[in-house]
C-alpha cells in the first residue's frame, strides 16, 4: 500500500499559548487537491509551515510519505514537498530566471552550475505561469501579481509530488487566479497532491477536491468539498452567514444578508 502523502495524527498547533488546532487527524493522498479555509489567525499558515517541516508540531505527529517530517534529510525533503510562502521581500537584484533556477537547488548535490536540463525546467515553468517574457527582469521591479506568478513558477520548477501553497491567489488578477486554480487541478490529475490556503470559496470549490476547515478554536472539519463546504459549516467557521446558490450546474458562495455594520463603530460624518 502506498502511504498517504501527508498524514497527521493528533496534531496540535499552538501559537503563543493560544490553541489553534487540536488533535487533527488528516490524510492527504496523491491526486487530491485540498483547500484550507478559516478566518484570519486560525492557524492555516502555521499548519502549512508545520507540514512543510519549517516548524515542529506542538503535539502529535506529521508524516510525509509515511516518514515523520523531522526524520527527513533536508535535501530529500526539498525533493518531496515545495512550499510557497505568503510573502517575499527581495533584498537583492536577482533576475527572474535566476530565482526560478534556484528552485532546482535540491537536485544539485553533484553540480556547481545549472545544466541545460535546469534551464529547460525553469523556462517551461515560466511559460506555464505566463511570465516567460519577464525572464531577464530584476525581481524587485515586478508588480505584486507578477512576482507571485514567478514564485509559483519556481515552485513548479522544484518539481515535487507535494505542493504546499500559502494564499497562491494573492495579488493575482482574476484571469490568473482562475489559471492558477486550473493549473493546480491539472497537477493533481497528474498524480501530485496540492494543499493551498485561500480565502476565495468559489475558487476553492472549483479547484479543490477536498477541504479542511479550521475554526480557530481548535476544532476542524476535513473531507470532500461537497461534504465539508456546506453553508452551515462554512458560516460557523468564518463567523458570517454564507449562502450557497445553485447557478445552472455551478454553485456560487455568497456572504448572506447585507453586511451587518451595526457591530462596527459608526463612520463619522462631517457636520
Amino acid at each position, binding site marked *: 500500500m502506498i502511504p498517504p502523502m501527508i498524514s497527521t495524527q493528533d496534531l496540535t498547533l499552538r501559537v503563543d499559548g493560544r490553541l489553534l488546532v487540536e488533535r487533527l487527524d488528516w490524510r492527504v493522498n496523491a491526486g487530491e487537491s485540498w483547500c484550507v479555509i478559516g478566518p484570519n489567525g486560525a492557524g492555516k499558515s502555521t499548519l502549512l509551515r508545520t507540514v512543510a517541516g519549517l516548524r515542529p508540531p506542538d503535539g502529535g505527529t506529521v508524516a510525509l510519505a509515511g516518514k515523520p517530517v523531522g526524520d527527513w534529510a533536508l535535501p530529500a525533503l526539498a525533493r518531496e514537498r515545495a*512550499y510557497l510562502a505568503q510573502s517575499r521581500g527581495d533584498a537583492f537584484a536577482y533576475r527572474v530566471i535566476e530565482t526560478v533556477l534556484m528552485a532546482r537547488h535540491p537536485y544539485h548535490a553533484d553540480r556547481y552550475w545549472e545544466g541545460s536540463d535546469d534551464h529547460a525546467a525553469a523556462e517551461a515553468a515560466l511559460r506555464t505561469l505566463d511570465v516567460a517574457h519577464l525572464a531577464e527582469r530584476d525581481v524587485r521591479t515586478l508588480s505584486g501579481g507578477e512576482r507571485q506568478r514567478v514564485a509559483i513558477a519556481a515552485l513548479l520548477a522544484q518539481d515535487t509530488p507535494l505542493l504546499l501553497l500559502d494564499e497562491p491567489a494573492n495579488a493575482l488578477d482574476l484571469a490568473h487566479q482562475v489559471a492558477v486554480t486550473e493549473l493546480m487541478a491539472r497537477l493533481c490529475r497528474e498524480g501530485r497532491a496540492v494543499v493551498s490556503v485561500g480565502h476565495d470559496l468559489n475558487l476553492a470549490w472549483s479547484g479543490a477536491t477536498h477541504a479542511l476547515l479550521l475554526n480557530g478554536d481548535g476544532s476542524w472539519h476535513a473531507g470532500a468539498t461537497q461534504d465539508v463546504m456546506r453553508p452551515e459549516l462554512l458560516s460557523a467557521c468564518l463567523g458570517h452567514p454564507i449562502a450557497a446558490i445553485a447557478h445552472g450546474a455551478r454553485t456560487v458562495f455568497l456572504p448572506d444578508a447585507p453586511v451587518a455594520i451595526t457591530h462596527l463603530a459608526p463612520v463619522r460624518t462631517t457636520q
Partner: protein
Amino acid sequence: MSVLPAASRTRQRVIVLVLTVCALLALAAAGLAGSVPVPVADLPQALASVLSGAPDTMSATLLDLRLGRASAAFATGAALALAGVMMQALVRNPLADPYVLGVSAGAAVGALAALLFGAALWMVDLGALTGAVGISLLLYLLARRDLGGGRGAVRTGESGVLLLTGVVLASACMALVTLMLSVAPESRLRGMVFWMIGDLAGASWRLLPWAVLAAAVLLALRRARALNVMALHADAAVALGIDVAAQRRFLFLCSGLLTACAVTTGGSIGFVGLVVPHACRYAFGPDHRILLPAATLVGGSFLVVADTLARTVLAPQQLPVGVLTSLIGVPVFLFQLHQLHLRRR
C-alpha cells in the same frame, strides 16, 4: 531568451581572470611608485631577488618593503570585502558590513584594552581577535531567535533586528573606546589613537591573513549556491533543502574572523566592506558564485591602490589609508545609490 547554461561558468572565469590581472597591475604599481621610484626596467631582476629571499640591490630592497606592505593591504581589503558580502547575505540587507554590525568596533575595544595595559604586540592582536569574534558571537546569540531558520524556528526571520542589534552594539563599543581613550595615560594615548586610525604604514609580509583569507574564500565558494538561496528566500531557504542555521553559524564565524584579521593588520579601515560588494553586485550581478571571488579581488586591489595613493599623494607625508578609502568610497557609494534610484524609477 536567457543565457546558455555554459555561459555563466565562462562568465565567472573571464571576470576572475580580468580582475586577477587588475590585482597584479595594482600590486606592480604599488611596488614601483613612491618617493624613490623603481624603474620598470629593474622590475624583473628586483622581483627575482625578492622572491629568492635576499634583496641585494636598492631597487630590490624598495620592492621588498613596498610589496610587503601591498600584500598586507591586499589581504586586508580582500578580507573586508569578503566579510561585507557574507554579512550582507546573512542579514539580507546591502547596508550591512563589519563596521555597521559592530564587529570592527568590538575588535577596537579588545585591541585598545590590550594597549591600555601595555601588553605585548601579539596580545594586542589577540585582543582584537577576541573582540571581533566576541561581538559576532554576541550578535548571534542575541539575534538567533529572531533570525529564525532551521527547524526550530518559531516565526519568520527578520533581518532588521540583527542590523539594529549590530548598530546598538557598535555604539556601545565606541562608548567603551572613548572611555578607554579618556582614562589612558599620556604615554600610551598616542599608540592607541594611531591604532584607531586605519593605517598600513607598519604592515609587512604576514602569512596568517592570507591563510585565513584563502580558507574563507574556498569555504564560501563551496557554499555560494546556498548563499544565493538564502539571500533570496530568508528562512524559506529551508524549504529548498538548505540548513539555514548551519549556514548562518558559518557566516557569523567566518566574517568575524576575516574582520579580526583585517583589523589587526590595518586598524579601522572603513567603507571597503560596504562599497566594494555594492560595486561588484552592480557590475556583475548578485550571484554569489561570481560575487564572492570578484569582491575579494576588487577589495584587495582597491586597498592596494588606496594605500599607494595614501603614501604618494603628499609624499613624504603619509596619509592614513582609512581616510582615503572613506573619501573615495563615499562619493562612489552615493553616485551608485543615485544611479540605482534613477534606473528603478
